[in-house]
């Protein structure tokens, strides 16, 4: 008791630090540490998924539709949320996404939009998040370059 009384200031400071750390780490509206770790699936494109492969994913699927209309052939069983990209971080939406037990599937006809939203949500700690697309070959060069041998010969 005497020790506690003697160290009350120290204990108070430690408790305050501990509470602040707990608040900071338990809140969902902040980015997690180590950006590389959370971006890892995007390096190997493991975060891009087609409707056929979605069926094999376990858990309750949550589809986030960033478009006004879902494209044909993309319909998947699961909870669906239609929302514009700029309001994806509204408290209720963010909570629903970050606390979903199963995979979260982001869909938009604009691949650049889904890429940005994926990175933000992933950095916030959303683990099972995927980009749902019917065209998984966005990052493949569709044209072939034919070298201009005449020009190079002239040089």
């Amino acid at each position: 008791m005497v020790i506690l009384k003697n160290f009350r200031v120290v204990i108070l400071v430690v408790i305050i630090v501990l509470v602040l750390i707990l608040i900071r780490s338990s809140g969902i509206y902040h980015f997690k540490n180590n950006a590389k770790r959370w971006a890892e699936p995007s390096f190997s494109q493991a975060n891009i998924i087609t409707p056929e492969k979605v069926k094999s994913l376990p858990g309750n699927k949550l589809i986030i539709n960033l478009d006004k209309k879902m494209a044909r052939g993309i319909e998947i069983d699961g909870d669906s949320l239609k929302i514009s990209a700029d309001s994806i971080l509204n408290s209720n939406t963010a909570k629903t996404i970050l606390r979903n037990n199963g995979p979260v599937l982001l869909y938009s006809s604009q691949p650049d939009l889904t890429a940005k939203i994926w990175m933000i949500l992933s950095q916030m700690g959303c683990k099972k998040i995927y980009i749902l697309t019917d065209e998984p070959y966005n990052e493949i060069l569709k044209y072939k370059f034919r070298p201009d041998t005449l020009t190079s010969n002239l040089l």
Partner: protein
Amino acid sequence: MKFKKRKMNTRVKFSVGLLCIGLILALLPLSGGRSFKVKPQQLLSEVLDNNNYFTVDQVAGFIVSEDSTVQIIDLRAPEEFRMVNIPGSINIPYSNFLNTDPVIFLNNEKIRNIFYSNGDIESNYAITISRGLNIKNTYAMKGGLNEWFRTVMNSSFSGEKITVRENALFENRTRAKKMFNEMNSLPDSLRAKFIQTNHLTTKKLDGGCE
């Protein structure tokens, strides 16, 4: 004697306090990795801004005019970069983007860094990461190299009349196409030399009447 004891007490308390805070920090799952520095909402509104893009025509213009305020960054794999690339671009594969600190190659605030890959996805990941790390001068070439081929490399004109604007656009594309063809037809060893030669030739041609 009383004073000495009190002084000692303060020191002990301070030491115990530091020890406790040190223990908390040691037990926390903190890593030395880089983390996003801006707030999620701020990052969201920043990356959704349409001013983060340059069209392929704008990029073609930068190349033709040899704009020194622009750094074009190819995010594709080195083997893809070696096969074909936009003249003047540097290769930083997206898979290695966070292996080193991106600030090292994006630190010049006077230079606009334009990312491109084959499509739109990797360049937008790169924009989001760099903006999250509070690097503001980053942009993406809309549509990537696929759009470059579709618009610049396959540009052609058929018809009798052409407006001034269309003519300027067509000329810009033709010049960029020529540079792209010349550059990518050369063996790797000659590419660096070619840039220097081309720079001098253009200067001489653009001289006009004095």
